[in-house]
């Protein structure tokens, strides 16, 4: 096995092995468990860095293992995979730190961190899947590994959320499987290839390909929370804050979105998908989801639920970007995959801080929170502004590219949708900021748990992660064009690299 084969496996192992070790650990071995977690997270970052350098230099990292005749477990760390891997690896580190602080002295932490690592492993697998078979394996693994996290609190309410979550995702998985096996039966393999495997198979009856596309999109659409398959996401908010942060801002929903990207670009091929008239309906669904999610968000009083619906809306930016035929849209969608992750995780961290520190769960309880917790609220503000697409935030960058893409693709209406969603997100975020900064705090907070120490308004490990991610949100916009020599370091630069490779000749502006 060469180094180029070993690296993808190492990336998987760097979270899988610590995870398994943690399961075996007795509850009280806090120190060792923390060490394992951090070691895994940092090791993974190091590996990812190597991969980034290699891939931008044109290296190919791939590994195959035959499971059945004609069916391989295949991993490939290409540019697209790395976009997702890097995002998850970085945010995993932050979330781990956050979770350590958040779950201090909580029961069943071994179980929690064990499954947490499994989720990240699954995410890595999804990102590096070299064919639909592998993709499906890890896609379902993600479902299974998240369930115990969603129901971690063990309350009947948590159980209800978990059950709904399972019902949706398992159903989605079944539909997806049908599509995959059907495709396999048609063409005898399920490989992902640059430009799409089907683009060369115009001989196949279109209706079959169209129904396969439908099945697959339905399958991954559940996790991507496309309306009307989004029902599970708000329910899953019963999970502890770190879970909502990483899984429902990054891992799970992004797995769905990422799946759509792979299916459109590397199974069907974007031109071929356009040829089969598959992109326009997809764009419509995405647009509808964007608007619907924003609308529902505006009417939620529960803070996490509001964020959840905002996620529903924001994730579809990615889908929309993919569905906009043309490199600009692609860049917009891909870059949003990263930007939305950073911004949304910030918001969830902050929501968690409000809940942990002051016991605030509802928007209506946020009055004056800014005075008690200025830093958290600052971070929240940055994230919220980003979501609205305000200038100097990552949100602005992705939105700009998306709009250009829409224009280039001659889909003017999409631009309208984006504007509308910006207004709506303003409508549901600004009141929060207004309450938090400008209104007078109540005489007593709901259930204050953590007392302030000077300017440190809450526990270290709760405070630092959101500040980092908030900073990243701004940085991603300021330094959008930055790159070290040939190695693109910002999400945008990387997205352009991918787009350039996907659309081959015509190089992205």
């Amino acid at each position, binding site marked *: 096995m060469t180094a180029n084969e070993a690296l993808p496996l190492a990336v998987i192992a760097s979270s899988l092995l610590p995870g398994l070790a943690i399961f075996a650990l007795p509850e009280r071995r806090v120190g060792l468990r923390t060490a394992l977690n951090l070691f895994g997270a940092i090791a993974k970052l190091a590996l990812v860095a190597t991969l980034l350098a290699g891939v931008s230099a044109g290296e190919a990292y791939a590994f195959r293992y035959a*499971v*059945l*005749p004609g069916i391989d477990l295949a991993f490939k760390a290409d540019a697209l995979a790395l976009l997702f891997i890097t995002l998850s690896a970085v945010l995993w580190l932050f979330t781990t730190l956050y979770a350590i602080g958040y779950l201090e002295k909580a029961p069943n932490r071994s*179980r929690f961190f064990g499954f947490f690592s499994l989720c990240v492993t699954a995410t890595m697998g999804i990102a590096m899947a070299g064919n639909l078979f592998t993709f499906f394996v890890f896609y379902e693994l993600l479902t299974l590994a998240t*369930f115990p996290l969603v129901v971690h609190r063990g*309350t009947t309410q948590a159980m209800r959320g978990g059950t709904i979550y399972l019902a949706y995702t*398992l159903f989605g998985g079944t539909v997806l*499987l049908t599509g995959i096996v059907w495709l*396999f039966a048609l063409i005898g393999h399920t490989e992902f290839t640059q430009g799409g495997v089907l683009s060369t198979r115009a001989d196949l009856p279109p209706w079959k390909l169209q129904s396969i596309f439908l099945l697959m999109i339905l399958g991954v659409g559940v996790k991507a929370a496309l309306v009307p398959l989004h029902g599970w996401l708000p329910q899953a908010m019963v999970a502890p804050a770190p879970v909502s942060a990483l899984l429902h801002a990054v891992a799970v929903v992004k797995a769905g979105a990422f799946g759509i990207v792979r299916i459109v670009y590397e199974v069907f091929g974007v031109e071929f998908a356009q040829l089969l008239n598959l992109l326009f309906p997809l764009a419509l669904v995405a647009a509808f989801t964007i608007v619907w999610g924003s609308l529902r968000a505006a009417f939620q009083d529960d803070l996490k639920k509001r964020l959840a619906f905002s996620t529903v809306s924001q994730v579809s930016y990615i889908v929309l970007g993919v569905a906009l035929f043309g490199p600009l849209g692609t860049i917009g969608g891909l870059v949003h995959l990263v930007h939305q992750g950073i911004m949304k995780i910030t918001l969830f961290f902050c929501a968690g801080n409000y809940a942990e520190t002051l016991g605030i769960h509802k928007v209506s309880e946020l009055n004056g929170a800014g005075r008690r917790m200025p830093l958290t609220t600052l971070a929240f503000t940055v994230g919220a502004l980003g979501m609205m697409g305000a200038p100097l935030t990552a949100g602005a960058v992705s939105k700009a590219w998306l709009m250009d893409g829409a224009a280039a693709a001659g889909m003017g209406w999409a631009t309208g949708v984006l504007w509308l969603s910006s207004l709506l997100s303003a409508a549901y975020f600004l009141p929060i900021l207004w309450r938090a900064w400008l209104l007078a705090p109540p005489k007593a907070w709901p259930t204050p748990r953590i007392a302030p120490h000077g300017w440190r308004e809450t526990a270290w490990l709760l405070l630092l992660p959101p500040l980092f991610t908030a900073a990243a949100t701004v940085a991603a916009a300021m330094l959008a064009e930055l790159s070290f020599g040939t190695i693109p370091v910002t999400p945008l630069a990387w997205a352009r690299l991918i787009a350039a490779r996907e659309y081959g000749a015509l190089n992205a502006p």
Partner: protein
Amino acid sequence: MVWLIALPLGWASLTVLLGPRRGAWTAISALTAQLWLAFELAQTVRATGTVRHAVGGWGAPLGIDLAVDGLSAAMLLLAQGVALPVAIYARAYFKVRSGHPGGVWFWPLLGFLIAGLNALFASADLFNLYVTLELVGLAAVALVAAGGGAPQVAAALRYLFATLLGSGAYLLGVALIYGVYGTVSTATLEPLLTVEAPRLAWIAGLLMLSGLMLKTALFPFHYWLPPAHGGAATPVSALLSALVVKASFYLILRLWIGPFAALVDRIAWLPAVLGATAVIWGSWHALRAVRLKALVAWSTVAQIGYLFLVFPLLGDDRIALHAGGMQMVSHAFAKAAMFTAAGVIVHTTGRDAVAEVAGVASRLPVTLFAFGLAGMTLMGLPPSGGFLAKWLLIEAALARGRWDMVVVVLAGGLLAAAYTFRVLRQAFLLPPSGERRRVERRPIAVLEWTAFVLAAASVAMGLRGMEIVQLLDAGT
């Protein structure tokens, strides 16, 4: 190969000699040797094709032939592979429950059961197969009855009459076959049994197959299974669900693709329809079962249904056969794991109602993990062996445009998920206050980990699919 039959016969009689409640280590060490033998045999079969042995040196049709091809080798490997962990489990199980009547003569009965299974998988002679069937059947019944209580004895009686009826029909079939052709050697019969076969041969085939279906508890012949498997002592339930029903199914498959291949095409839809019904019916009852072990037993009824879906799909591309083999192997391990895990839960909490396993997640993590992994295989979720079986089954169905079967398979998977998570979500719930003070037995590591090993094996199948398929294809 011969030793795989002689050895268990030997240690079975030896444990009789040793006396009541003795012989655990004899059995375990012998089973270890057998596992190694089976492994060696599988290697040989993969390398050199079918291994034959003419008992008495006469050779068919005068004598009895043993023949082990890929399928048989896989089953032999499976039998030893499941039996060894279960034996280790049983030793600990009957040690902590020294009063359990099932433990008195458990080891000899186990020995005869394994001997019967191995003899069955190796035999190529219809009448000899009848004797092995009886050996397996009576041993299984005795193991169930050993439970001692009225429910167990009642279940055992039901089981006994079912299995006797089954083997009776099989025997009559053999009698007719001998009457028509004057031989009972499968190898000799294969060329003789053509489409022009006299009607008596057809009737014989139907008799044998339906008798075996009764023994396999295919819907609607499943009535005897849930009480028997759900009521017996845990190690017994594991063995029965994992191996005994598989034995008669193996024989059906063997006859179907062997001697009766020419006759069965036009009735292939029948087992499939029954199988589909079994999938739905079994899952439905599993969803409604009150007792944990009853749930697992009903799930066996459903999973058996899957096996029978393969018959209309059997063809030159051996996908359906692979699916059947994969399903047999992974379900055997998964179901053994599930029963053993359930046994641990029942033993430690002292409750056996599904509604009462709340809080197990934090008290028996290993066991619950085992249960979950086994569940993965039953649901057919990746990366388990059950998933590969499901995949192959769907692939085979699509290859023949049988969308109805695809739907059944997928629906069955979702139902399996439903009843597995019925247990898991209960387990994750916080126990109601006061539960903590309930008197409980201490969990025993051996029990927990044997269950886990079995479950892990059922999942690992998913990564060793290649080897299994190659083995199944060997010697054909």
